Structures are given as C-alpha cells and as structure tokens.
C-alpha cells in the first residue's frame, strides 16, 4: 500500500511539472495581454513536431533540437502576437474568439502537412530507475529533469532580469508599468513568445513518451486550463501550486479509483472554484 502511495506521489509530481510548463504560458498570456488563449495546446503540438523534425529528419541531438524548438517558438509566438492578437488588445472576448480561430488554423495546417496518423518518436533513453519496489522509467525522469531546469531558468529570468521584472509589472498594472517605461510593443510579443516557448518545450519533452500527431494539443490545453482556473487567471505562483495539486489528484484518483473518475472530479472542482472563488486559489480578485 505504502508502495502504491509513493509511486502515485512520484507520478503526480512528474505530471504536475509538465502541467506547469503548459500552464505558465497560458496564465502569462492572460496576465500580460488579457487573452484566454485557446490556441495554447496547438503550440504544444507544434513543439512536438519541431522536435520530431529535428531528431528524425535532420538527425540533430535531442538537446540541440530542444534549443532550436525554443528559438523557433519564441519567434512564432511574437509573430502570432503581432498578426492575430494585437488588434484585440483591449477586447478580452474578441481576443479569445480569435484564439479559437487560430487553434483551428494551426491544428488543420498540421493535419495537411503531416497527416492524421500518430508518428513514433525514437526513444532518447531507455531503461528504468529502481529503488526497492519503486519504478521510474528513465525517459520520464529525463523529461522531469529538463522540465525542472527550464522552469528554474524561467523563474530566475522572471525574478532577476530587467525584462522579467517588466513582465511582472505588466501583469500587476498595465498603465503604471507603461508610465514607468515598460515598452508594451516589445513586452507583449515577448510575453506571448515565452509562453509559446514553454508550451513548445513541453511538447518536445513529451514527444518521446506519447508520440506525435496533430491532435495531441487538446489534452494539454485542458490541463493548462484547469490549472490556471484553479490557481487564478494570471497568477504564476497560483499556477505552480495548482499544477502540482492537479498532478497529485489525477495520479492518486487514477491509482485508487479510475481514470475517468479523475477527469470528472477535476472538472467538477474547476466549476466549484469558479463559482466560489473566480479569482482562483492565489489570484487577485478583479476590481
């Protein structure tokens, strides 16, 4: 029994880290630009395809591929911000509807380019780590390790660099930030670019575990969505707390009850949180 609990705990933390990678970009887009980005899952899908192209078509090593994926994703995010989202900067609802259109374009674009069939991704590492009766596949441990490193780098960027501070200032108050010389044109593009990059990295990290297809974006979008609602739209610490919580809830419910029960429980939880405390666990109330 205690073995099952420990195994669930580890699985939950792995899931939570990946959900966090997805959720930060989603919550950043809302915090900075007030856009609920329904296309966020498609950026995960694009990241997975970038990794696939890098590793199998170009034959690059996995770390180089990931670095390239990040670079491509930042540029792509900035482009999307400029072309699709910028006209709707002061209109939350239209921005969100536009993101629905963007999601359709990206998903079906990928469908035309790559076809509907899932594509296998060559394993980066094989084998398992074993501690007593605990088992962690090395591929998952690798995804977890890289995920944590990237999250730490992003945290340092956010807390200790000029642009990071500017981003946080924007989340708190756009007008005051602008008055203090934060350049909105650059920071909007940067904010979305980083968000897209984190989603793309999550896609690249998960590609070896789950395979790649144009439809893989839907589930991560749902998870990011749940995490961000629970943590509070726009709140990064809230997202961190909620991501780990969601990972643990899912892992424990599916070990001890069933996987479909886990989904129903989390969605019911989302609805209750929205009704009782729309600002989420750690979000600030709207004024």
């Amino acid at each position, binding site marked *: 029994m205690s073995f099952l609990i420990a195994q669930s705990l580890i699985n939950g933390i792995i899931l939570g880290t990946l959900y966090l990678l997805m959720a930060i970009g989603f919550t950043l887009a809302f915090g900075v630009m007030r856009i609920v980005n329904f296309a966020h899952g498609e950026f995960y899908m694009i990241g997975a395809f970038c990794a696939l192209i890098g590793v199998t078509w170009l034959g690059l090593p996995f770390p180089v591929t990931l670095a390239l994926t990040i670079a491509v994703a930042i540029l792509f995010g900035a482009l999307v911000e400029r072309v699709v989202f910028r006209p709707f900067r002061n209109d939350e609802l239209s921005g*969100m509807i536009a993101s629905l259109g963007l999601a*359709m374009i990206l998903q079906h674009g990928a469908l035309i380019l790559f076809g509907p069939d899932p594509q296998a991704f060559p394993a980066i590492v094989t084998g398992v780590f074993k501690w007593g009766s605990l088992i962690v596949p090395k591929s998952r441990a690798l995804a977890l390790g890289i995920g944590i490193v990237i999250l730490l780098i992003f945290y340092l960027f956010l807390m200790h660099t000029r642009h990071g501070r500017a981003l946080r200032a924007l989340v708190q108050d756009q007008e005051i930030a602008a008055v203090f010389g934060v350049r909105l044109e650059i920071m909007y593009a940067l904010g979305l670019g980083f968000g897209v990059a984190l989603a793309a990295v999550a896609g690249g990290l998960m590609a070896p575990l789950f395979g790649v297809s144009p439809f893989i974006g839907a589930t991560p979008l749902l998870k990011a969505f749940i995490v961000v609602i629970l943590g509070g739209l726009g709140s990064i610490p809230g997202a961190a707390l909620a991501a780990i919580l969601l990972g643990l809830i899912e892992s424990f419910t599916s070990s001890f009850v069933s996987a479909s029960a886990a989904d129903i429980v989390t969605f019911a939880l989302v609805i209750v949180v929205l009704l009782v405390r729309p600002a989420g666990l750690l979000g600030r109330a709207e004024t």
Partner: protein
Amino acid sequence: MSVTSTSTAGGVRPMKLVGAILLTLAATIPWFTGSTFHFHIAVMVCISAMATSGLAVIAWVGQLSLAHAAFAGIGAYTSVLLVVRFDLPVLLGLPAGALVAGAVAFVIGSPLLRLRGVYFVLITFALNELFRLIMLDIPEYSGGSSGIAGIPKISLFGITLSSYQAVYPFALVCLSLVIGLLVLIRRGQLGRRFAAVEENLDLAESSGIPTARTQNIAFTIGSAIAGFAGAFLAHYVGFISPETFGFQLSVSYVIMLVTGGRLALWGPLVGALFLTPLPEFLRGAVEYQHIIYGVVLIAVLRFLPQGLVGLPAQLAQKGGRA
C-alpha cells in the same frame, strides 16, 4: 455597440427589402435545382441557424456561452430517449428536448451568470466538457462512445418525413418559428431590457432592471432553443453520441454567430447560411475547410466587428464619408 444603430441609419429600408428577397430566394434554391444534396445542406442550414439563434439570445445580454453544444445534447438525448424508450411521437419529443434543456439552464443559470466576460466563457467551457465526460460515463443511457444509431425519423401525424425533400419544409417552418420568437423578444419589452443589460449592466441595475433575472431568462430561452435544435439534429441525422456535442460544436456555433453578427437579429441566420454550405463546396479537403473557418473568423473579428450583417451599413458609411 447600440443594437438599434443599423435600423436608424439612412437608406437601410430598401436594404432590408433586398435582404428579405435574397433570403427567400436562398430558401427556394433546393426546389429549383431539385438536388437531394442541396436539400440536405438546406436542412443543415436551418438546424445550425436555429441553434445559433439560441446562442444569439444569450449574446444579447452580453454573455457568450461555450456550453451551447451541451444544451443541444441535452435536448437531443431527452427527445431520443423519450421516443425510443417510451414510444413518444417525435413531434412531442422535440419540444420536450427544448423544455428539459431550458429547465437545466434555468436551474444552473443563476449561479453561473454571476460570472461575466471571459469567466463566464470559461465556466461554460468546463461545463461542456463535464457534460461530455458524464455522458461517456453512463453508456446505458448515452450509448457511450459508440453512441445511439437508428434514431426514428421525424413524423407528422403518421407521415414519416424520411426523405430530405420532405424534412426541408418542416425545418423551414421550425426555423421561421424560432426567428419569429426572436423578433417578438427583440420588439418587446424583454428585448429592450436585454439591450440595456448588454450595453451597461451597472446602469441597467441601478435603473431598476433585475439584471440577474433578465440574464437568466435569456440563458434559459437560448438554451431551450439549443435543445430544440439538438433534438431536431438527432432525429434528422439518426445518430448521436456524447462526442457529437463536444467543444467543436460549441465553437462552430460561436463562429457562425460572430461571423453573422453578434448582436444583430439576422446574424445567426446569415452566419449559418454563409458557413454551413462552405465546406460542402470544398469536399475532399476537410482540413482546408477548418482553416477557412479560422481565417474567416479572425478576419471578421478584425474588419467587421458587427459581422456580415453589418457589412452593408459599414459600406454605406464609408461611401457617405467619401
């Protein structure tokens, strides 16, 4: 933003007449061509236009629902289960579907509608997902992921409308009734209350309009219409599953509404009329169809904030300025 702006602008009267003539002509196209396929598209336009009209009623009080497909699903399953299990005539199943969908909306409406803007969209998105998951979890009623097939066709007083040609007049009648209801609401006191709530909720509240109740009335009416359209769809297509009423369907209703015109009376009809036949002319290229939907949606949001319905007025305004 004002809902009456289009009817007060000069030179709109003849435009309305032209619009009415065009719509009537469009409705008769299948009889001219006689093609079964065109009858099928025409019926699909009617069903989409009905469902989108329901979404429009909710949009009139300033809320955008992403749970519209779920309410269509509630209506569809209500009607199908009543007809299949209790041998109820389909003609009673359709309004029963509307009734149950409306009742569910009424009950959950008052807590939901405390949320506004994107928060309301998010909670309705979660609700639609919850509906799908719960339906998948009770296969004894929903048919699970393989759905329910062989649903009885619509029959009127003993005559089964089995061919596309036979269903189409009935679909036109239903659509006319739904649009008639929308016109009644829009012209009446309720419509003015809706407009006031949409325009400025706080001002409406302080002017003595019970805003919460008004929004709930709109949500209930709109969702009931969705239930009716969903039930119609189920009996017309003959197959439903929980996946039929997923996120994608909700999104396509939103796309039709926004493309037609979010606040215009004729927006839902124009949106459905423009977007439903579009994929049929691109057959064999379903992927391109969705890309076109996406591009149309973003372009309309960007350049035609009042939707296609607002296009003549927008052109007239430009012409007047030049």
